[in-house]
């Protein structure tokens, strides 16, 4: 099948490409990149994307699909649908499922579930069996089955000695250990520790709980020569630690979630559990540090930490409600509105953070705009202004603080695996 995309600005920083052109795609492969006369290919379906930009398909390296074990909140399919709707053609999903992704069977199950979907689903394997922090998970076997990285996300790896061994072991396959940085003994609070938490009377988590474990990860990665990736970085001091470590040449990378460069702990004042996540919303100085970190490259990418929870789960007392918000369908909008349109990041940087760097960290191939390459695109209308409406979300869960938020910039279509998502519909191309 042939489709023509007209009037696109093709932007791929990996190729130093910024080009106005039409694109002809045949059976999912890029056939021509040039100005096309639609009358020549009368069979082709034509999409007029004048004024839109086309970037390599976006990749979210931190999502939680609740399958197996929590299918009421999200499944691999519903999560992938949400990803496509949000403009993503690839995701990496975390292993805190039930059972955990600590065996080749579960890795294969998830990959199998996602077969035939537009979105590429890459499982992240657990670091320890069951994520219990008692013994190493069979990382070599998980890697061979298709895992692209390892994490005990939900918690940090239980002991320094286990993390050390994991970093050493993962060196054999050049895979990163993705750390949820939170000191176990300082954890358990419901919001960030500051004068706001004192006023609200809620138990709190200090930023130093994150900083300590970030430091542990950096030092162990430095010592062993292994690769560590800091998940959902949120604290100013942590950003500074990563910055210093990178200068020293440590193999450390970091991601930040959109809510950590958009919201502060002031939002918790209404006790709405849709503002409750871990790490919690921090103070303005932390938000500013995250944005600076994104600007100077300390923070390599943006990842949503998409964490679906059912309504009944979230409709609990603030201290009992589970942590997490969905984020696949607000991520691009927030990034463009808060960072691009406010002049904090260039468009190239946005593409790096959302499409290129996540793949590099996980050793995945970068989509290229070349004849003969698989078509893996996200088509964005940078100036489209709208209000995010949860009604139209493809996710099974509704736990977002951004319902009704005004955003500027949206994904219009995504193309991958010979499929296209456009106008709320999947179609084969």
């Amino acid at each position: 099948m042939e489709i023509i995309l007209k009037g696109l600005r093709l932007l791929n920083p990996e190729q130093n490409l910024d080009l106005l052109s039409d694109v002809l795609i045949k059976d999912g492969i890029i056939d021509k990149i040039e100005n096309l006369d639609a009358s020549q290919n009368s069979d082709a379906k034509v999409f007029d994307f004048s004024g839109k930009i086309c970037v390599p398909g976006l990749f979210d390296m931190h999502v939680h699909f609740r399958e197996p074990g929590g299918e009421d909140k999200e499944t691999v399919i519903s999560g992938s649908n949400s990803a496509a709707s949000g403009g993503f053609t690839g995701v990496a999903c975390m292993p805190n499922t039930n059972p955990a992704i600590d065996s080749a069977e579960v890795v294969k199950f998830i990959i199998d579930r996602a077969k035939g979907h537009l979105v590429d689903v890459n499982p992240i394997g657990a670091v320890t069996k069951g994520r219990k922090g008692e013994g190493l998970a069979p990382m070599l076997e998980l890697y061979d089955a298709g895992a692209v990285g390892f994490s005990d996300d939900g918690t940090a790896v239980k002991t320094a000695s286990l993390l050390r061994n994991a970093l050493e072991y993962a060196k054999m396959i050049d895979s990163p250990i993705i750390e949820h940085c939170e000191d176990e003994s300082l954890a358990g609070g419901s919001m960030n520790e500051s004068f706001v938490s004192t006023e609200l009377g809620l138990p709190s988590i200090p930023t130093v709980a994150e900083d300590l474990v970030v430091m542990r990860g950096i030092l162990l990665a430095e010592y062993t020569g292994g690769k560590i990736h800091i998940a959902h970085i949120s604290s100013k001091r942590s950003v500074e630690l990563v910055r210093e470590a990178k200068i020293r040449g440590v193999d450390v990378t970091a991601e930040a979630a959109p809510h950590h460069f958009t919201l502060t702990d002031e939002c918790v004042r209404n006790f709405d559990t849709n503002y409750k996540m871990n790490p919690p919303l921090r103070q303005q100085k932390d938000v500013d540090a995250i944005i600076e970190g994104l600007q100077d490259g300390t923070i390599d990418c943006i990842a949503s930490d998409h964490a679906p929870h059912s309504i009944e789960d979230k409709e609990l007392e603030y201290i009992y409600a589970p942590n997490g918000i969905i984020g696949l369908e607000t991520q691009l909008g927030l990034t463009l509105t808060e960072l691009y349109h406010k002049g904090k990041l260039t468009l190239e940087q946005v593409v790096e953070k959302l499409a290129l760097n996540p793949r590099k960290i996980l050793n995945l191939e970068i989509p290229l705009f070349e004849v003969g390459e698989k078509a893996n695109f996200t088509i964005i209308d940078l100036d489209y202004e709208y209000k995010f409406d949860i009604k139209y979300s493809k996710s099974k869960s509704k736990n977002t603080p951004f319902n009704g938020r005004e955003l500027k910039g949206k994904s219009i279509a995504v193309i991958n695996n010979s499929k296209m998502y456009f106008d709320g519909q999947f179609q084969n191309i």
Partner: protein
Amino acid sequence: MSLSSNHLLGLKDVPKEDIQLILDTAITFREVLERPIKKVPTLQGKTIVNLFYENSTRTRLSFELAQKRLSADTINFSKSGSSASKGESFKDTVKNIEAMKVDMIVCRHESAGIPKYLTQISNAKIINAGDGRHEHPTQGLLDMYSIREKVGKLEGLNVCIVGDISHSRVALSNIYGLQTMGANVSVCGPSTMIPWGMEDFGVKVYNNIDKAMAENDVLNVLRIQLERDAGVLIPSVREYHNYFGITQERIEKNNPNILILHPGPINRGVEVSSEVADGSSQIILNQVTNGVAIRMAVLYLLGTKSEE
């Protein structure tokens, strides 16, 4: 020709001539083991104490047999049920034993450095039967003897030690001994089991067993200590076997002529498959027999050495 030292504490600084002498002398003793009467009167009247503070059956048995076949008098001392369990210090125990006039002490201890300490507090000749993760010289010697017996030489041979190198005194003794004799030594195992500084030893590191097998003539396969390592350094025995286990398929695919050694006891199905453990590539039982001969040679060379 005699050994340059009055003790055998390790293979680290043992000169090539000494190793050569021990290996050559062991040939004679290997022949004695084939006789109907496996005894020679050489060490008659000598008293040897087997001071085993760390448990061992095979090594102690091997040493005891070697001593008896040389007609020496042997005494066994283990930590449990002894004065040590009554709180006597190691030094006092040794001094007491020595006061009963013994000629040689064969010692195994979980703390590295004990054999060296013994040379300072005792007048007996000391043989190290394994100290912590430091050295196990008679194992290194019997491994070299077995390789040489089968292949005909050690110089220029490519030998790879496979397994938990970081906890292995067998690995260290093998590295020292083989390098002294001119072999090229490498190691192979998951990165969590390879200790610091292998490059400083001049030892190449492999993390891929197929590559290690293809590029080496001999594999010395170490035992995985299941109790200690599973979950901690390696996820599981199953993953270790899948990625580092020596199987017949791997031998045929990578190097059909490769020689397999193992210091024992074997974990069948973990570091080697049953088929390999019983197959024609391995010389594991030869190692056991040669072990007695090597120990006889060491006891002979030290026991009959005059104090010059």
